Structures are given as C-alpha cells and as structure tokens.
C-alpha cells in the first residue's frame, strides 16, 4: 500500500484514505458543446499513460476530502511530490530519477 502525503493535511496517510482521480492538468473547455470531435476525444479519452513520471490527481476521500495533484514514477510507484490543486505543473522535480 502506498503512503501518500496530502498537501492540505500536511501528513503522509495510507492509500486507503485516497482515491486516484486520473491524469492531472487536463483542462475542460469552457465551451464544451462547441468542441470538435477531435478535441473532445483528446480531452475525454486520450491519456498519456506514461511509463515513468506521471502527473495525476488524487482526492483525500476519507480525510479532508480535497483534490490535489501528485507526481509519481509509474515504474517504482514512488511519489516524487504532491502539490495543491490549482498550482502550476512543477517545472523542476526534487530528486527525480529521470
């Protein structure tokens, strides 16, 4: 089981308290009905599914219940960092293996 640091609670808690909420930094169009089929597919279905560093959303379901973002290595499952929702994608990663 993973230990995940909630950036709001500022605590490492067991994975069971959290729900993964998919890839992060995918912006929903303000005019979703006006999206072309191609753009809607990219927004709704296409995922980067990286082997390596992933930026993803988690929700501290059984804690503060808030969404936040995490950077994780999908090969080792090691969390590199977590940060609050709304903060920009970190340009530089602390202690990244790659």
């Amino acid at each position, binding site marked *: 089981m993973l230990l995940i640091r909630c950036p709001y609670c500022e605590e490492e808690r067991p994975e069971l308290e959290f729900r993964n909420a998919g890839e992060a930094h995918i912006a929903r169009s303000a005019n979703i009905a006006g999206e072309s089929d191609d753009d809607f597919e990219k927004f709704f279905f296409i995922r*980067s599914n990286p082997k390596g560093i992933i930026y993803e959303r988690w929700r501290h379901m059984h804690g503060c219940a808030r969404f936040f973002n995490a950077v994780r290595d*999908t090969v080792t499952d090691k969390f590199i960092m977590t940060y609050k929702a709304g903060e920009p994608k970190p340009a530089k990663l602390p202690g990244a293996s790659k």
Partner: protein
Amino acid sequence: MKKYSVFAIAREAMRGHKGWEAQWSSPEPKKEYDVIIVGAGGHGLATAYYLATVHGITNVAVLEKSWLGGGNTGRNTTIIRSNYLYDESAGIYDHALKLWDGLSQELNYNVMYSPRGVMMLAHNVHDIQVLKRHVHANRLNGIDNEWLTPEAAKEFCPPLNISRDARYPVVGAALQRRGGTARHDAVAWGYARGASARGVHIIQNCEVTGVKRAPNGAVTGVETTRGFIGAKKVGVVAAGHSSVIMNMAGVRMPLESYPLQALVSEPVKPVVPCVVMSNTVHAYISQSDKGELVIGAGTDQYVSYSQTGGLHILQHTLDAICEMFPIFTRMKMLRSWGGIVDVTPDRSPILAKTPVPGLYVNCGWGTGGFKATPGSGHVFAHTIARDDPHPINAPFTIDRFRTGRLIDEAAAAAVAH
C-alpha cells in the same frame, strides 16, 4: 516440426528421450520481414500463427522484449467465456470460444482447454436483473447461458456457501457451460511452435525502442536493442505497454495501464469443479489441474507499470472468497503476482488499423484478454494480411472514441471494473 503423438512418446521412451527437438527455433533477426509483430504473448503469437496458416505470410518476426509468454499470458487466471452483453463483443469472444474447441488438435499441442462451466453469482435484485439480461442477450446471439437457482448453483459447485445468513447471500447464478479454463503457458508455447514450424522468426530478448516512419508517414520498421529491423507492416500486440510503443510511432492512445493481481493457494485435491465468479463481492476462483486454487483480484486504482500491486487488493479478494467458500478460510496462499493491463475507456479492445499506414494495433483487452487469444489472433492476422479488418473486429476501431460509436462494455462486460 515433429508431430507429438503416443507413438512419439513410445519412440522417445525407447531411446531415453534424446530425440525431442526444441519447440521453436531462436534465429538471428533478418534485416527485413514482411510483417513484424511486437510482443510474443498469446495474442501476438496467435497472430503470427494465423498469418502463416490462413494467409500464407511466413516472412514474419515476433519480437519480444523479455521471454515468450512472460507477460499477461503467464499471469492471468485462464478463464474462458463468451457471455458478453453486446453483439460486437459476443461476436468476437464467441469466435474465440469456437476456436478454443479443437485448438489442441489444430496445434498438435495440448492446451488443456476444459469447458467445465463458468458460473456467475447473483447476490441481490440488481445482480439478478443484470445477469438475466445477459442470459437473454446471449441466447439471442446463439451463446449458451442459463439461469440457476441457488440450490442448482450449489449442486453444480458443491463447496459454494448458499446460506441465507451470508453477508451477501447467493440468490441465483448464470451458467455458461461452454466456458472454462485452459493452460495459459501451453497456449503461447503451442502457437509459438506452430508458427516457428512454418518459418516465423520468434526473437526473444529483443526490445523495440523506436518505430521508424518514412516521410510519407508509412512504417518502415522498428529500432530494437538488437538493431534496426525493417518491415512495411508492424502489428503492435504489447498489452500494458501498447501505448508506450504507439507513442514511439507518434500515436497517442485512449489507454491507461493498471496492475492486476492474481494468486494461487497450496495445491489440494479436486474441490472446485468449475469457474465461479462474483462481481458484487468481486472475486473469481477456479482450480488448476495441479490442484491450486487460482484466484483473481482487482486492479489497483492508479496507473502503474510495476507488475505488482497493493496487498489490500488481495486481502479484499480473499475476504470475498472466504465469504463464498467458508471451507477455504484456512487455506494457505502460495504465490501472488501482478500483470499490467491496458484498459480502454469503454472496456472493449482495439483491433484495428491506425492513422499510420502499415501500423496495426491489437490492445485494450484490459482485465480479460486471455479468453480471446485464438479469436483475437485470427482476426488480427486478417486485418494485417488484407489491410482491412475482418467483419468480426470491424467495430473495434481506434477512432470510435472520436466518432462516439463505443462498444460500452464498461458496465456490461459481465465483470465489475
């Protein structure tokens, strides 16, 4: 290829078993092939086999980054069934089921296909409605599926607990008698042997590191850890790594890869005569011919390539198994493992041409690809050979996520996701 038979066994017994030949050869890769298949799992090897036998295309290489059948082919729970809800799914899974019947004879290799029956349990009114809907839909598609009372379910599988005191009592079951299990490794080995005998090159320890494309966009070959290998047609059958390979060709996929776990118990005498599945408590179980209980768990909730998974996932599954079969509460579990499954948004596979000329993909089988192995290879070989899909896999396009023509088994695949 020397045929296996009772006479071959007798002949070899006479001379100390020194005449058995390797089941497939391991040649050096050539500079160029007509077709390259990326991934020597069951689906990839079956594709190569049917390219050779059905379409006469034998100048084929199957490239495998590690050892043959060492990915999900060697990691699944070997369940075979075709009781899917939608016509498209019923078509492809039942095509596979028909090929399972007779596959050992076709390959001259005992894949130990055992149609011992797959029984899916209902625990509440909603389950009854869903499973009965499946029974009716399957029958309309000519697929056997029947409704059992709890008593009939217990008669079919005696260790099952049908007590009304259970936390989730069994209130009925759907039974597909043609469903069952097969020996997963033998499927890969049998297809490999059959393909190799017809001239297909199976190249292990050869990881694809890039996909080369001509200025017009068409595929010209693949870069590998053993150098460049040319081919005008490349079929990607890389399961959990499909999106990694497709990214090398510049195609972003509607896929996410998750660890899926399974485990086996210590071997015991025959006790579970069929496959039992429950979506509501989420567990499935059968017994291998070695006597181990083979138990399938769920996926982890996050994207990962770690080929492992959280222990709490296994605990959850064993809770459910003990609920269904209190007789097993003191069984010891021997081993557990994880495989990486590639899941599409609609939980149906993609077997199709891609936007890149000469590049084909067979992926997205998610948590249940083993059962489809022969059918998947058969229609994918057709797609590659003719550059046009077989009518059975025509609906499983890559662009259905743009057009919206989904095959939305997500809630209907007869398993919980």
